[in-house]
């Protein structure tokens, strides 16, 4: 019924074009896949696709929380450090209390730090950029203190087998990423909390006037973001069997790049998990493809930087057209 009324003005072709304009990242993703398929015979293999999904899933899980926070018009720079702390705790505490309680405490550390971030942002009125920049440095310091500047080794290597479950070529980690992304897409589109997220980021005055508890709302999203960073850290510790104090360094930047690449607006009010999935996959495909082509690391960084700027220019151009 809703489609019928929507299409009174627009033909199906127009609405497909309209969707693509707002989700141009998928066009971009298709293009990169085509380019790498042509230039490398190893790219479009079942194994490699599985690898891309697993590699992308780590940034992806961070990006889900970041998307929520960014639609709110905020940012969380501390996710990389939170990830490192959660992974250090999950491994370091196993000697004292066993595997699962340690994992649980790791998870809780992320939730608690996210809660602290959100509370500071909501109550102090400081910009989240500053608050979480403090978190980025401070929490990383905490990780070094806890780990004594050494990589922590898991006592029992069966821990590393936990995520080694595959559904065909797709790892449990990748499945978890997609499941979380879909769940939070549902939250965004179908729950009160989701509507609040858009309303707060889009027009905070209107949201406040409408009686939305803006502060509580932001604290919830920062807490989700911190928890997901901890999930990512724990998965990483399972995959590596160690917890490096430097784990996840500058991952917050890759995460922001993935989210922005997807089309979620830095100023807030606009974005979705579909876009973020697109951004995460594009980023993963680019990194994987460039490595398959034996691109030196610094060239890879240059290409990524260029791609990011290009995607944003494209977004600006397309969305400008879309508005008029």
């Amino acid at each position: 019924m809703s489609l019928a009324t929507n299409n009174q003005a627009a033909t199906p072709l127009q609405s497909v074009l309209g969707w693509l304009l707002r989700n141009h990242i998928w066009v971009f993703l298709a293009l990169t896949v085509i380019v790498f398929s042509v230039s490398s015979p190893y790219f479009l293999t079942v194994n490699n696709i599985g690898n891309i999904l697993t590699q992308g899933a780590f940034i992806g899980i961070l990006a889900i929380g970041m998307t929520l926070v960014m639609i709110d018009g905020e940012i969380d720079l501390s996710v990389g450090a939170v990830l490192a702390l959660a992974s250090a705790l999950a491994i370091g505490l196993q000697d004292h209390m066993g595997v699962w309680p340690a994992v649980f405490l790791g998870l809780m550390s992320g939730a608690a730090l996210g809660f602290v971030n959100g509370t500071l942002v909501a109550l102090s009125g400081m910009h989240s950029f500053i608050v979480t920049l403090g978190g980025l440095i401070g929490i990383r310091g905490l990780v070094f203190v806890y780990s004594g500047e050494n990589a922590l080794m898991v006592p029992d290597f069966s821990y590393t087998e936990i995520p080694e479950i595959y559904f065909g070529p797709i790892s449990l980690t990748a499945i978890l990423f997609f499941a979380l992304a879909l769940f939070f897409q549902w939250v965004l589109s179908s729950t009160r909390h989701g509507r609040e997220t858009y309303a707060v980021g889009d027009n905070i005055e209107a949201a406040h006037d409408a009686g939305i508890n803006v502060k509580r709302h932001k604290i919830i999203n920062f807490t989700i973001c911190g928890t997901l960073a901890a999930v990512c850290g724990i998965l990483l510790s399972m995959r590596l069997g160690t917890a490096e104090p430097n784990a996840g360094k500058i991952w917050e930047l890759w995460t922001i790049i993935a989210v922005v690449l997807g089309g979620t607006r830095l100023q807030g009010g606009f974005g979705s998990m579909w876009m973020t999935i697109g951004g995460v996959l594009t980023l993963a495909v680019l990194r994987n493809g460039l490595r398959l082509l034996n691109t030196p690391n610094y060239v890879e960084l240059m290409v990524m930087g260029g791609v990011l700027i290009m995607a944003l220019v494209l977004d600006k151009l397309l969305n400008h057209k879309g508005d008029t």
Partner: protein
Amino acid sequence: MDDVILRVEGITKTFPGVKALDNVSFDIRPGEVHALVGESGAGKSTLMKALAGLHKPDSGQIIYQGAPTEVAGPLDARQKGILLIHQELSLSPELSVAENIYLGAWPTNRFGVLKKRELRRNASAALEALGCGFDPDVRVGTLSVAMQQMVEIARAEAFNANVVIFDEPTASLTDTEKDQLFHTIRGLKARGVGIVYISHKMDEIFDITDRITVLRDGQVQGTVDTAETDLNQVTRMMIGRTLDSYFVKAKPEFGEEVLRVEGLSNQGLFSDVSFSIREGEVLGLYGLVGAGRSEVVETVFGVRKADGGKIFWKSGEIDLPTPRQSIDMGMALVPESRKEQGLVLMMGGRENTSLPHLDLFSDRSVMNRSKELTTFDKYRSALSIKTTGPDQAVSQLSGGNQQKFVLAKWLCADPKLIILDEPTRGIDVGSKSAIHELIADLAEQGLAVIVISSEMPEVLGVSHRVLAMSEGAVVAEFEGDDMTEENLIDAVSHHRGEAAA
């Protein structure tokens, strides 16, 4: 007495330095459209914000449906049935029409999951009741302003509002859209909704309202039946005030013509405006808010681009200028909103004063601090500005002292023509008369001064000549003995009456 849905009793609200509402009482009956009029700063917005729960009054009470009511906030007001429709619409452009109608009050189950079908159905019903047939699933950002306004009005249906407050609802509507809006308002009225209608546009007020309450300086001047009054009376209530301050007028010794404007037009704002001004002359520009006064001088200065007309500077025709060229020629515009256009609030008086003329205060781009300080000291004593020092942030100063810095920064470049837009709005009496004296001094030094003011005594007191503006046109010019309050009121209200008829 029974026939009142909402009564405001003796509300007072004080902001630091201003009494925005002073013992205000008025009431709204079901099924009436009640106009709230007054010049800017009269307290209209404060009053309606108090009704909508955005401001908490210092004293007084709101009697709603026969019982004293405390409105805790906007959502509370809405749920009680009091709806405020903002001038700047209170919508989220990225959300759908239905989601915006129920913004913050979406129907959900116990777990916070949206009941989308119910949301959509209720929104459709609300829209239908208003007689606007657009799709509740459309993104609000894609709608026209008029349609977005309808989305806000649909909240009246959705929340079963008893009182709807419109703040300048026609500000950005076309004539057809306005007719539709009035149709909608009459529909609400027929259902027994009490409507408060705030507007500067007198023709609309006489068209749609049943009663008019006039506010001035935070006080109610009176409530009249629309059918039993006329523009002249309402205008008088809005602006009439006693001549309680003493004005100094510069000696009328005029020199050469400085500026002449012929047939200047700017579409939708004003048309065919002509005037001239000589050295040593003070020209007053009077009109109610919305008459186009500020727009005219902003166009002369080059902030706005003119559509047509000629500007002559010292008898030579010039191209339509940019602000930079205007400053270089010797024109200065002191804008109405000090904070937005006039001053960099974080900077001190020294830096603010030199800001428009950095080349005068610098040697090869390096700032000359001692030159700045000399100028700062000169104006601090000349205008007796109260500040702790050259680097005290101007945000910490009173409105009057801020205004003096705005003047200082334009005066230190030695302008030939200075335009003052509402130079004394919102400042204390002492600073006011200091500024009036300054205007006279400047004119006697040979400057041409244009003064825009909504305060009639001020315009009449400081000017040698007054232009009356109404609805984008110069409707009269007064000089000498013709410069009286009566004549000015007649000029601006008579013209409006014709336009409305």
